[in-house]
């Protein structure tokens, strides 16, 4: 994945990205990949927040 200094723009294709995850349903670690969402024709909501163990 190339480093870019400009943030994504609306209407732009989001470059594929991958995240290590904790999956509460499987109670295990795993991976989230945007390309899997596209392959499955699923909408995706990415929800960033500052830190665990803090207050909403």
């Amino acid at each position, binding site marked *: *994945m190339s480093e*870019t200094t*400009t*943030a*994504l*723009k*609306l*209407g*732009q*294709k*989001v*470059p*594929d*990205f991958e*995240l*290590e*995850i*904790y*999956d*509460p*349903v499987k109670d295990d*670690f*795993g991976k*989230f990949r*945007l390309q899997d*969402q*596209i392959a*499955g*024709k*699923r*909408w*995706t*909501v*990415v*929800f*960033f*927040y*500052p*830190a*665990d*163990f803090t207050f*909403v």
Partner: protein
Amino acid sequence: MGCDIVTVSEDTKFVHLAWRKSEKELANVRYPMGADPTGKVAKMFGVYDENSGLALRGTFIINPEGTLFNSEVNFYNLGRNIDELMRKFKANLYMAKKSNEVCPSKWKDEGDKTLVNPGAKMVGKVHEALKG
């Protein structure tokens, strides 16, 4: 509803596991909790705060083709409204099915008034279109 949510913070997956298991407020959380300790993904979405190493409160809606449709970013002190997120999500889903309709500002749910085939005939006549 054909949608997946993934939460992301700069914490590692181990911290996510620990938090999910210890905090009762999260007992119903079933979505994957993403770890971005290098900040790579937060930087790509433009929510990485260099001063703190933390991610700002950003929500992004991506359609099934991988196109970014919505973004909302708040500073640390303002939580996002989940009803508003649901509203935006439902609107996106609805308009994906009805490509000739757009959702005006008061749209909340399927069945609310939309603007159908917005075009030259509607210019200057939005009031009538919303009433009719």
